């Protein structure tokens, strides 16, 4: 509530400006966002951005073609929300272990109980829902028995029970299964959602009961969509369980959209869910499923990086331990930079992401590469003794590493967009040219050339080291060894 209402008149100005200046959503996307016209007058407020995201994400879905009129769409803005969010079912003994979708859960499911309370959360007693809440707490107590289950390994007895210790080894071996292929139960899912939401620190509002309940309901509804949605299940098997990180992405969308002035709560929540679902449709299959994250890295990130900058590729994948880049890439991709960059920077990147001008998997690669170019000299360390872990440490603390030298965010997105286009045209020469030029401008041509030389030297020396034993010499050595052996045997005799 705090700073969002301060500039209410500015909000209207922003919208009116946007509406009068740009006739179509495409113009608004191209000029307002990609050419950066929206950002020339300072930062957008959350309300402005909420309106912007709603407009570009929800209305480009109305598929009126490229010349659809914003104004008409804007008038319709919230009228097409005829459906309601499902209430979160209250967890009972009957439904606790059932999956979110599929098998009948329980009589309580969907009977209109608008459950905005929390089963196990003492902090979130919703006064409006006192009776529900009591019921929920009672159930919670009955269910919990001091056994908390957040992962899909069933524990039927106390883990230190004598029998379970004796059987421990076998039991664990049998239960080591791929957690992505198991459907997390309703109660496990809600437990971890509650836990994550209680630890969502993007903004203090997430500690408020009402916000917690709304976020929980939206996530529950999204999980139902994710599990029901068959169209995602085309070639790859995707992980349809709730995963840590879902909450944080939703949090950032919620912050922009929860209070867009003319909306009531129900409509705002519906809009948040829609924007979230549209974004996650590309995020989950690419980054939240382990096998596809790994193939994204080997089939997209690595080849594109190699075309863009042989120096960076060399550093990250030849000199570095190949496997270790996934450690930082995982957080960068799964949270779409939320933890890596300053918040006002992140939301501008998200403006661009939400225009869906490029496939997200490729756009993310190009954004990441551009961010790496931005700290080129930190990555291509001249310190010979720097080890792999130091590099990963730098990348896990990008904010600190990049410091104040981050380029303008719109520029960043433009470069990344260019790279995406060139990649799709297989114009590798220009990709490399863009990246090399960028680095030269940043660090100066002289330094660029020097770094280049150093790296070439390193590579050459590495080759030299590994080739130290040429075949002829090796043969000679073997001969000598054998001779010495024979001599010593003779000597011992």
């Amino acid at each position: 509530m705090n700073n969002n209402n301060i500039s209410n008149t500015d909000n209207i100005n922003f919208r009116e400006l946007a509406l009068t200046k740009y006739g179509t959503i495409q113009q608004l996307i191209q000029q307002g966002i990609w050419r950066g016209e929206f950002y020339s007058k300072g930062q957008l407020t959350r309300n402005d951005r909420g309106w912007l995201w709603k407009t570009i994400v929800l209305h480009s879905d109305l598929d009126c073609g490229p010349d659809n009129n914003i104004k008409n769409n804007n008038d319709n803005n919230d009228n097409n929300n005829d459906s309601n969010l499902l209430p979160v079912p209250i967890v009972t003994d009957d439904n606790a272990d059932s999956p979110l979708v599929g098998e009948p859960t329980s009589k309580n499911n969907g009977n209109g109980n608008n459950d905005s309370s929390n089963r196990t959360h003492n902090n979130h007693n919703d006064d409006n829902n006192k009776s529900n809440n009591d019921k929920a707490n009672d159930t919670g107590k009955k269910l919990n028995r001091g056994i908390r289950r957040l992962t899909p390994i069933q524990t039927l007895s106390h883990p230190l029970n004598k029998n379970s210790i004796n059987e421990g080894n076998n039991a664990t071996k049998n239960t080591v299964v791929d957690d992505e292929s198991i459907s997390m139960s309703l109660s496990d899912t809600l437990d971890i959602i509650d836990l994550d939401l209680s630890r969502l620190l993007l903004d203090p509002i997430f500690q408020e009961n009402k916000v917690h309940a709304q976020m929980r309901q939206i996530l529950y509804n999204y999980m139902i969509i994710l599990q029901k949605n068959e169209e995602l299940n085309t070639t790859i098997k995707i992980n349809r369980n709730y995963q840590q990180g879902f909450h944080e992405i939703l949090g950032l969308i919620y912050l922009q959209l929860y209070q867009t002035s003319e909306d009531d709560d129900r409509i705002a929540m519906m809009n948040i869910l829609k924007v979230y679902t549209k974004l996650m449709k590309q995020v989950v299959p690419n980054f939240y499923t382990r096998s596809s994250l790994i193939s994204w890295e080997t089939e997209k990130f690595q080849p594109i990086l190699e075309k863009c900058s042989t120096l960076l590729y060399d550093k990250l994948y030849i000199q570095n331990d190949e496997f270790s880049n996934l450690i930082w890439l995982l957080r960068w991709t799964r949270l779409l930079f939320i933890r890596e960059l300053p918040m006002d920077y992140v939301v501008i990147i998200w403006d661009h992401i939400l225009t869906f001008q490029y496939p997200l998997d490729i756009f993310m690669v190009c954004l990441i590469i551009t961010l790496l170019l931005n700290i080129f000299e930190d990555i291509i360390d001249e310190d010979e003794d720097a080890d792999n872990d130091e590099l990963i440490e730098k990348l896990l603390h990008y904010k600190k590493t990049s410091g104040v030298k981050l380029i303008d965010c719109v520029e960043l997105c433009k470069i990344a967009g260019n790279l995406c286009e060139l990649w799709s045209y297989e114009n590798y020469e220009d990709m490399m040219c863009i990246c090399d030029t960028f680095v030269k401008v940043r660090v100066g041509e002289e330094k660029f050339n020097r770094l280049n030389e150093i790296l070439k030297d390193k590579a050459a020396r590495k080759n030299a080291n590994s080739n130290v034993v040429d075949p002829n010499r090796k043969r000679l050595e073997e001969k000598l060894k054998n001779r010495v052996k024979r001599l010593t045997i003779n000597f011992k005799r």
Partner: protein
Amino acid sequence: MLQFKLVLLGDSSVGKSSIVHRFVKDSFDEFRESTIGAAFLSQSIKLDEDDTVIKFEIWDTAGQERYKSLAPMYYRNANAALVVYDITASDSLSKAQSWVEELKNKVADDKLVICLVGNKLDLCQEDSGKRSVEISDAKQYADEQGLLFFEVSAKTGEKVNDVFKSIGESLYSYKKEELLSKSEQNGTNTHGQVDLQLQKPATSDPTSCCT
């Protein structure tokens, strides 16, 4: 200075990151955001023995990373593992036990130091009814498995430093043994003593010795 890689494993919200922050920054936050993937911090301690300085490179992992997951990426090449559970949530101990199993099955290095740590001791000191894992039971399990064992409170800081000190001592004694046997093999050891400062430690990375 000797450098070692240490990895934290355990169920969600048992307090892995809080233990690390208490150790590295001597601070505690009631709310801490969920770790996504892994976080990295480092901290050095000085052992009483020989005034040895040990630097821990700490890999703090997400609780939701589990079986067949990306976890091996984090514990690969680790010299020590801190397997954490919450003494007020008995199920978190069975998760910890699974981690111990996994480490023993998957990590070839028999010198891997594993320390079982029960966190949230402060909650049980306030209200003993909250305890759901008895210290004697956990200790017995740790002994059977040959693990170091501590109950700590990241919130008050109780015993947190002891954990790292004890791990450091174990690692140091392994290191001494290793160097001793090496120098015996090389026949350079005349008085049964080893000058550790002159030797590179065989940690995860040969370049990780900072002299």
